[in-house]
């Protein structure tokens, strides 16, 4: 046995697939890859705690600590939290008292709009996906394809009629308008994704429950939904990420009261004609990353857990 274990097998690549256990060797390899992959983000986070004067220094400053002398002094900067406070209130040109920038409101808007629209899309989309999967309509594939087409056109084409429509009915600049727009924006992906999960479930258990007299609602809620929790979590995370960072619709449809962070961020860093304010941009982005990062982190268990707990699969 020992004769045919290669170095790769010994450090944890013993079997290539499946949720098998692997050792610390695998951790080391993956940690290396992940760290390199994460570097550009790390740089943004470090820029957020840089003194503003060092943002564009040559050579670039890379780290807030010298890591016990590992990193040469020229690449090290002293961290500061100044940038984070200037996100919410900053001294405008000409001096005087710091003025509020309204970013607390924009963060609130982003949270309300993204979570409402993603949840709404998840509820409507899951129902529709279950319908498409279990009670196929005449021309089922055609409907699904039309739904997919709604994602194919560049947003700019849809947005002009949407603006005209919203202005006509007074939805322009309201929460309802942007939430409905984002719900539709997420529905195509939600339906396709959830349908692929429902399709993969075995119908044996459902049929058995039906024969035993369970109602359709009960079969859906008690038997189908628990099996696709992983799919729901994944869809929720994807929808949240896409909606959270959406820029074009938000730019054209939201008003000053409902403006979301990406739009405000774009305006904040390029206003004043002095070029990009790197440390401010990094500070906003870092703060803006935290909620979606936490949600993804806490849903990760579901995201990764296989959907195989004793159910018969096709």
């Amino acid at each position, binding site marked *: 046995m020992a004769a045919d274990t290669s170095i790769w097998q010994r450090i944890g690549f013993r079997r290539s697939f499946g949720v098998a256990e*692997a*050792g610390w060797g695998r951790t080391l390899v993956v940690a290396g890859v992940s760290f390199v992959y994460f570097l550009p983000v790390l740089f943004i986070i470090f820029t957020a705690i840089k003194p503003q004067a060092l943002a564009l220094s040559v050579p670039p400053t890379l780290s807030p600590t010298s890591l016990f002398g590992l990193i040469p002094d020229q690449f090290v900067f002293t961290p500061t939290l100044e940038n984070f406070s200037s996100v919410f209130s900053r001294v405008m040109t000409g001096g005087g008292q710091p003025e509020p920038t309204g970013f607390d409101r924009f963060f609130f808007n982003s949270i309300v709009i993204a979570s409402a629209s993603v949840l709404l899309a998840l509820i409507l989309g899951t129902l529709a996906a279950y319908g498409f999967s279990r009670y196929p309509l005449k021309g089922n594939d055609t409907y699904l394809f039309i739904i997919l087409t*709604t994602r194919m056109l*560049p947003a700019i*084409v849809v947005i002009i009629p949407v603006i005209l429509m919203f202005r006509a009915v007074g939805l322009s600049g309201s929460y309802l308008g942007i939430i409905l727009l984002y719900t539709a924006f997420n529905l195509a992906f939600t339906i396709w994704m959830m349908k692929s999960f429902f399709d993969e479930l075995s119908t044996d258990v459902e049929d058995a429950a039906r024969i035993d007299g369970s109602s359709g609602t009960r079969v859906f809620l008690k038997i189908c939904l628990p099996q696709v929790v992983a799919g729901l979590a994944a869809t929720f995370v994807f929808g949240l990420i896409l909606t959270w960072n959406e820029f074009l619709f938000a730019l054209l449809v939201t008003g000053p009261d409902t403006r979301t962070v990406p739009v405000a961020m774009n305006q904040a860093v390029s206003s004043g004609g002095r070029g990009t304010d790197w440390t401010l941009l990094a500070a906003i*982005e870092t703060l803006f990353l935290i909620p979606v990062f936490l949600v993804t982190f806490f849903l990760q268990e579901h995201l990764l*857990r296989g959907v195989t707990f004793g159910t018969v699969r096709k």
Partner: protein
Amino acid sequence: MLVLPPVSVPSLRTSPTLLEISADNWRLASLVGVVVSALAVAALPADVAFWIVGALVALVAVAFVVNAYRRRYYGGLLVAPAIAVLFAMNIFPLLWSLGLSFFAYQSNRQSIWFVGLNNYIKVLTNDIAAADNWHALINTGMFVVLTVSAQMIVGFMLAMLFAKQFPLRKYLLILVLTPMMLSVVASGVFFTYYYDPTFGILSYAINSIAGGQFILMDSKAGAVAGIVFADAWMWSPFVMLLVLAGLVSVPKYLYEAAAIDRVSAWRRFWTITFPYIRGLLMLALLFRTIEAFKLADLVILLTKGGNDTMTISYHLIRIANEQNKTSEGAAISYIMLFMVIVLTNLYLYLANRRTRES
């Protein structure tokens, strides 16, 4: 002997006649809805009429729902709410802009007149406009092939790395997922910094190793590489997550059986793993291709279309938004839609054929 419990099947109701007042009489509800909303639109100001029409649509919808429920038409019932939202927010505006593409309309002017297919003819054959369009389209094709294949390869490899349980996996996975969570505005702007010839990290690193002045965005190849790299970096985690969801759902006993039968790794992959991830892989490919066709934000931020990196989406934004040629833009986007539809149908056809074979 097995005795099934008696199941009472209520007899299906017959359809109500047109004038019968009942909750499931959708014909009457639709008739009332059409007549009253036509009157409301004609007589009342738009914002009042909107809510009246909305209420009537709700009434008709209720009638349809009750009708579907009483006739056990659950498929339609489950699908209807999603279709309603999609129709109002997406399909209706799509049809509107389809209509606009047959008119001469500029969003900064009042006049509008019917020109038939002229917009399409103009964007496809006009000497000046068409050359730009075709060029942008070819560039887009190049970006689609490069970014999607880069994302699929990197995403797939990352998924393979994470397809097992190992210590700290949870914390490492979230690191890889973070690029996807960044706002394109921020990450795009920061990529201009990384690529910057004077201040940027990339140039600094290359200059200090190789000497001389390194400017990535100087040539077309460099500019394209820069955009593809940034895009692939942001969206490979998306492919990875979908593939990973497939990989972890493969039942373990299949591998155990394969191990007993001493099946080779290559065959194990194609006969066990691949069928489980095929659906999700296809989904990832489909959505990334559609998104790649719409690539505009990174191009705007990184090159502003310079160095021959203009994509059709960015070109479209310029025409429709900056030059206000709304209907020409609509015509271009419908030609583009047609191409994407052909491409996706090809995908779906191939995917379905594979499924039928196995």
